[in-house]
């Protein structure tokens, strides 16, 4: 098999605060192949968005990447210089931000914001860039004349479409979607995801899709990575994960979503609350909430065990 497009090895990200050091991403290892859609699921605060920002090296100041490697097209992103990073950003890896409301500059027209990107990367002159911006907007279903519109003149769904058009402007190899539809209603959410899927099939970029909505993710992704308390706990192709989860946390997550197909069970929530990362539970971090906890779970932290060519889980019971 070829080398994967993105290969993350033992990545660690720490938030340094007065209360102590919080590890928001703890030894995460994950591959993304070309044109693959990898979903990253987990509760709030499980480190998903931090992972995304670490990949573009745009983490806000108190956060530092404290270890590991993230090889992208053969180069380690974490060791790139500021100039190399600028070339990588958007041209090779782009991102759709979580909040469509706040990620567009309110005082510059949406067209200008796309033009800025194209011009900064030398992809076009200002004149060319303008018509290219209009094309990009049309591609995501926004009429070309709206190129001069400002963010406040657009609906939430349209703003997120602008975010997508912007992310695809330079035809990157990897697009990170950081909870792209959290602020939107279900109908708009589905439209947008379908649109991304369609564009992905056409343009062939890989996607790292971050969300807390596991059901949505299972429909949308090829492979799913489940995060719990800053760690990767299970990795599996979407269909297999749905059919036979190997980590009790994944099982709990699946049970927590109502199923449209079967009218059998009421959704069930996982007891307890996600642990504080300031003082995570010893050994297996999920053991205080696990319904099948064993003695070993309290003693030793489970490793991420390879369970098949494309499957892995970090649970003593999966061995």
């Amino acid at each position, binding site marked *: 098999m070829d080398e994967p497009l993105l290969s993350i090895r033992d990545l660690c990200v720490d938030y340094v605060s007065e209360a102590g050091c919080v590890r928001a991403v703890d030894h995460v290892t994950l591959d993304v192949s070309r044109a693959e859609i990898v979903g990253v699921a987990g509760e709030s605060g499980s480190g998903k968005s931090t992972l995304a920002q670490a990949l573009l090296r745009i983490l806000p100041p108190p956060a530092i990447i404290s270890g590991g490697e993230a090889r992208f097209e053969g180069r380690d992103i974490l060791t790139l210089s500021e100039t190399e990073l600028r070339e990588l950003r958007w*041209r090779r890896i782009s*991102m759709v931000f979580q909040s469509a409301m*706040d990620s567009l500059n309110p005082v510059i027209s949406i067209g200008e914001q796309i033009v800025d990107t194209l011009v*900064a990367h030398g992809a076009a002159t200002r004149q060319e860039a303008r018509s290219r911006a209009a094309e990009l907007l049309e591609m995501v279903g926004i009429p070309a004349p709206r190129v001069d519109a*400002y963010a406040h*003149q657009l609906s939430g769904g349209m703003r997120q479409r602008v975010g997508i058009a912007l992310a695809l402007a330079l035809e990157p190899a990897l697009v990170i979607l950081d909870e792209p539809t959290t602020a939107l209603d279900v109908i708009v959410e589905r439209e947008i995801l379908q649109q991304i899927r369609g564009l992905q099939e056409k343009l062939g970029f890989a996607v790292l899709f971050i969300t807390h909505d596991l059901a949505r993710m299972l429909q949308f992704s090829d492979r799913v990575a489940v995060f719990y308390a800053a760690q990767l706990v299970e990795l599996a192709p979407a269909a297999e994960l749905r059919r036979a989860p190997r980590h009790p946390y994944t099982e709990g997550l699946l049970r927590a979503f109502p199923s449209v197909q079967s009218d059998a069970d009421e959704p069930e929530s996982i007891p307890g609350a996600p642990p504080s990362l300031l003082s995570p539970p010893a050994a297996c971090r999920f053991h205080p909430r696990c319904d099948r906890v064993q003695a070993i779970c309290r003693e030793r932290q489970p490793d991420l065990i390879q369970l098949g060519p494309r499957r892995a889980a970090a649970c003593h019971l999966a061995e």
Partner: protein
Amino acid sequence: MRFVLRRLGFYLVAAWAALTLNFFLPRLMPGDPASALFARFAGRVSPEALQALRETFGLTDASIFSQYVTYLRHVLTGEFGISVAYFPTPVSTVIGTGLFWTIFLAGSAVLVSFTLGTLLGILAAWRRRGWVDTWLPSTFVFLGAFPYFWLAMVALYVFGFLLGWFPLGHAYGDDLAPGFNLTFLTDVARHAALPIATVVIATLGGWLLTMRNTMIGVLGSDYVNLARAKGLTPSRVVLRYAARNALLPSVTGFGMALGYVLGGSLLTEIVFSYPGQGYLLVQAVRNQDYPLMQGIFLVITLAVLGANWLVDLVYVWLDPRTREAS
């Protein structure tokens, strides 16, 4: 464009209200201001000046409505009567020269202070905890905390009197005839340097801190992070995406500071005996020169309104969100 005209309309109404107030206030005072004034000036001022005073106030025997119309016509034609203090110069001429020096002095002081403070604020926020950020805000806030007149007098004493680097007062040397030549302009600049510098030192801290604090907030926003992620150069991210947005609250402050330019430069002009609006106002009060006072008040009101209108226009140009808002 419609917005601009609507704002203009609003300011015209405000101006009319100010003019009307200026007309009615003397008439609302208890007693009869005219008799009191006439009694005080009797014998000391020529009949022409008294007549000017009467006309400025519109204190004729005509009905109040026709007085009001006369007053408005006088204002619109710049007819404020004859100055008592500078008799027999017309008030409009007196104000004209004063206004010129005030706009020049306080205008350039506020402009320099705003520009410099804002740029330093951007720099402080950009290089957070750097040299600029550590030292400049506290230094300038410290300097700004001194009473302004004290700061100005110390500066005048040290740099004007002891060291003799700058002249002690006035807008230009007594031995020079005003004219558009290099000698005169350098002299004007030399005279203005100290007053401008003291105003800048006293007010820079405010601009710096406002800009720095807004910038820090904006730098943490999603759209700035996105701009960074887009691979734009740091200077472009900071200037076009962060500073452009962080500037908005400062522009509002700038509009208000322009009011200070025309009304509040009093202390500067007194300390440096600068022949501007504030200095004239003091002269007017000292000499009970009511026509001049009334004229100055009017000019200040109108100028503040005009300045605010201009700032409104700049704001609309800077922030598209205000275009549809009203």
